[in-house]
């Protein structure tokens, strides 16, 4: 078969270097002191904070809005905003737009080599992907420590480790950090790293926006963390007004934190969606796009469309706190319902932002370990689109008892239960793929199987929650808490782990240790279930969420859950140990295609060249021709050889 004739000539021209630009070398890439990197970003962030804080105090005089805090909300807002600006300036995110703004040609950005590139404003999606891995793990570790603190306090209803004030800060900070982390945990690291490789592109559509999305994500971490030295915020991750309006200066960090993280979410979503739509290699038709890419596309759509609502909601809250507007102040003509509506209008699409990438990962990994094509590919893709669309029409199921639009409860009950139909497709797909397979239980596969186990419990309890009569008992209690930990931690986080064990060998060239991986998997699976399953019972027995004392008869269950939570914490330490061991202490070189995947990302050279593909491949079919005799080749790389999936074992090209 000769296809080279069909190859578009422009891409065949082997130009690996990007189009040259004039204007000298960018500051971000200069060596030594004269360059921009995380260090300069930190310095400018601190300077920006001090400047902003001073300015805020200067313009607002001795006017002090926040009762009893000795803090000025305007100064806090300005300080943090200028801090973020300084951070962006310091890392070099603004060089390009500023140069363009004054009509100059922007500087030429070349990738520096070596370790230091990970601390710079890199335009290489592979660098950004790895930066994100470290970023989300930092979030996860911080949030996890806070979770341990929560379970420590709940060991006893009467003996307290923390004051109620500290406790509520911890709970709120835990929830917010984890939600922010979960939003990016797969889209950030794996989405950025893998999407161009999977669709046969050399880069993202907007590499600067991509880099921006990462560095502002880190800034968001700083902002939300600044709540602690400011005295924390008491509202949980949901930030309900008027408690929000009443709260101290830590609330500014929450509102601004979500706005800053929100900018990153919008940027990432927009960039990824455009990339997937426009940067697919020739021949990569919609029916050949890997299922992971479909899931990331659906997620990117949600990120772009839902986040602006959160962003606006957060700004309204900030205005209420600083400029004395009354968006959420009922006495002055605003409404506390407005925040609830805005927050959940974003919040429900958000929960699917935290589910869809997980579905994509299991869809992508299962065929590799079952040696079978993905079952019902079209249903899977349609399901993801369906979930994404429907997720905009269910938000009031969080407000069934609030008195908002009470007559609409049957409608929201219906839409919520409808969404479990497309959600359920992932089970059809998974079970169909397992059917008469030859399953290899490698670590990534185990995490995938665990997702099916955990998410089932999460989804089924979701249907309980959406039943209004049952919701009367379970709303606002530990049952809800357990429901979303089963979906987010049991689903998304398990999928993330599957993804890391699966793709890290490609991303870093090093294998994760299998023995430690198995210990990590089994401890995480067992202790996750033992920690969270009792919480369904605790909730049914009447324990509300976010409490620091509880009924005495529930101590046994709470103690059990706490003990298991500590073991779950240990399991994460095993994961970190494995990561350190396999990546730094005793690395083992990974084979080019250790799992014998047919995916396009595995067909690139190892390590992946700066521009991914020597020539843009021409895609000839989808990547799921496992165990198919006489299967067509996946792609033409223009190097004379055709990638063949033409064997029962589905081995990769030599």
């Amino acid at each position, binding site marked *: 078969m000769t296809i080279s004739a069909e190859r578009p000539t422009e891409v065949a021209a082997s130009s690996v270097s990007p189009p040259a630009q004039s204007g000298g070398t960018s500051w971000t890439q200069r060596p030594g002191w004269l360059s921009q990197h995380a260090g300069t970003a930190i310095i400018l962030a601190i300077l920006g904070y001090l400047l902003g804080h001073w300015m805020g105090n200067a313009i607002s005089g001795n006017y002090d809005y926040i009762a009893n805090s000795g803090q000025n909300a305007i100064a806090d807002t300005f300080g943090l905003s200028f801090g973020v600006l300084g951070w962006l300036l310091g890392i070099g995110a603004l060089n390009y737009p500023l140069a363009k703004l004054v009509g100059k040609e922007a500087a030429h950005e070349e990738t520096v080599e070596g370790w230091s590139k990970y601390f710079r404003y890199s335009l290489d999606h592979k660098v950004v992907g790895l930066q994100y891995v470290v970023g989300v793990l930092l979030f996860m570790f911080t949030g996890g420590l806070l979770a341990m603190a929560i379970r420590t306090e709940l060991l006893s209803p009467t003996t307290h480790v923390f004051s109620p004030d500290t406790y509520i800060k911890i709970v709120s900070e835990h929830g917010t950090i984890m939600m922010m982390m979960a939003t990016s945990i797969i889209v950030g690291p794996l989405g950025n790293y893998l999407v161009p490789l999977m669709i046969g592109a050399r880069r993202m559509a907007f590499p600067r926006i991509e880099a921006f999305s990462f560095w502002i994500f880190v800034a968001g971490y700083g902002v939300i963390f600044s709540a602690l030295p400011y005295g924390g915020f008491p509202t949980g991750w949901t930030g309900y007004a008027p408690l929000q309006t009443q709260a101290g200066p830590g609330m500014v960090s929450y509102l601004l934190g979500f706005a800053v993280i929100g900018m990153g979410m919008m940027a990432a979503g927009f960039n990824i969606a455009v990339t997937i739509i426009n940067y697919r290699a020739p021949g990569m038709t919609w029916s050949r796009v890997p299922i992971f890419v479909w899931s990331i596309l659906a997620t990117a759509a949600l990120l772009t469309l839902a986040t602006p609502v959160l962003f606006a909601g957060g700004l309204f809250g900030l205005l209420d706190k600083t400029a004395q507007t009354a968006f959420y102040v009922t006495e002055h003509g605003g409404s506390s319902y407005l925040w609830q509506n805005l927050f959940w209008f974003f919040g429900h699409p958000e929960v699917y932002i935290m589910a869809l990438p997980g579905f994509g990962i299991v869809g992508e990994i299962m065929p590799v370990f079952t040696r079978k094509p993905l079952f019902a590919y079209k249903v899977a893709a349609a399901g993801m689109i369906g979930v994404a669309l429907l997720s905009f029409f269910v938000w009031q199921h969080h407000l069934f008892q609030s008195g908002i639009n009470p007559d609409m409860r049957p409608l929201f*009950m219906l839409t919520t239960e409808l969404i479990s139909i497309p959600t359920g497709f992932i089970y059809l797909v998974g079970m169909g793929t397992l059917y008469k397979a030859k399953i290899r239980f490698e670590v990534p596969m185990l995490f995938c199987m665990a997702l099916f186990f955990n998410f089932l419990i999460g989804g089924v309890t979701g249907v309980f929650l959406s039943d209004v009569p049952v919701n009367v008992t379970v709303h606002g209690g530990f049952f809800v808490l357990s429901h979303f930990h089963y979906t987010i931690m049991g689903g998304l986080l398990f999928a993330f782990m599957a993804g890391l064990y699966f793709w890290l060998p490609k991303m870093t060239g090093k294998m994760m240790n299998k023995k430690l991986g198995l210990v990590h998997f089994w401890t995480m699976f067992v202790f996750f279930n033992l920690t969270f399953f009792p919480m369904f019972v605790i909730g049914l027995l009447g324990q509300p969420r976010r409490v620091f004392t509880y009924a005495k008869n529930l101590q046994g269950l709470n103690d059990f859950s706490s003990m298991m939570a500590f073991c779950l914490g240990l399991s994460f330490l095993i994961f970190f140990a494995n990561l350190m061991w396999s990546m730094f202490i005793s690395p083992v070189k990974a084979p080019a295609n250790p799992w014998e995947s047919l995916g396009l990302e595995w067909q690139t050279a190892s390590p992946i060249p700066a521009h991914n593909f020597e020539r843009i491949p021409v895609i000839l079919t989808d990547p799921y021709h496992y165990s198919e005799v006489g299967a067509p080749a996946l792609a033409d790389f223009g190097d004379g050889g055709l990638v063949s999936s033409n064997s029962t074992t589905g081995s990769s090209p030599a």
Partner: protein
Amino acid sequence: MSSENSMKNETNHLRKMTTIWVILSLAADLLFWFWVGPHVPPGTMTSTAKSNQFDFTFLVLFALPVLIGVWVYLGYAIVTWSAKRDNVPEPIGGEVARSNRKAQVSWITITSIVVLFLAGFGTVAVINDHGSGGGEGPNPIWNPGGASKAEAAALTSNASWSPNSNQVLPVQVIAQQWKFTYRYPTFGGFESSELILPVGTTVAFNVTSLDVIHSFWAYQLSVKADANPQVNDVAYTDTKQLGNFTVRCSELCGLWHGSMFNYGKVVSQSDFMNWAKTTESANAANTANLPPFAWTYVPDANGAAGGYYPDGTVTPYSTVEVYGSKQPAS
């Protein structure tokens, strides 16, 4: 392997799984229904508790077969199709493995039917049980007979309730950081920190807040309604049994949210009448200092929630109607 053979093999796998599934599901459902069902929270103290308990149990009857179905399948797959076993045949790729019309269509049909049925079931329950004990906002449309009359009367000075009259009893729940208090408009509008209710009576809870959002959760009564400032959130239930119940705040409301609970009692109608009359006269001096009974109250200009709260019908701020705070039609 001939195609006939593989067909047989196919039905074999499916038959085995189905058999295991049916047996386990039946056993689990029966066990749950008879053994756990009667103990399912929130018990049977009120009409809403009873029907919400039934709803939960009913959903479990669907949930268990779903859970067991997937688990049986996964377990079966792990055992029979593991690459570790010898004699596991090589999988077959290609079109046959990529889709199966019958499987897909029946999956989608079955899940859709179940889901639509459950949504319908829930809707019927909410409407029949007058909101199932959940907060129905200021203008409930699914209200029990006599409720609108009693609610309208509550705002007038001749509101009354007497035993054996089958009247709806309006009770106001006022939440503030961090306690609940209760006003009884049919007894001169006195305020109490105890929630005492007569048995065999339809109660209309009118829930409001003086500061942030709280949620009034009377656990054993199966009543839950958010308390929003300047909103009257109404929930109904019929008391069926005597006994104590717990009230907890179930919406995060700040520092002492976890300690925002108290206890209530369902007593006989004559005991209730005695208690109400006694408390009304004992509290008369206090009641005179309270603002006139209203559905919502605005904190005074100093924002002193928990202290004095002026009448919501003549507020210092809002002469206009505020989003979400419509009063029940009278």
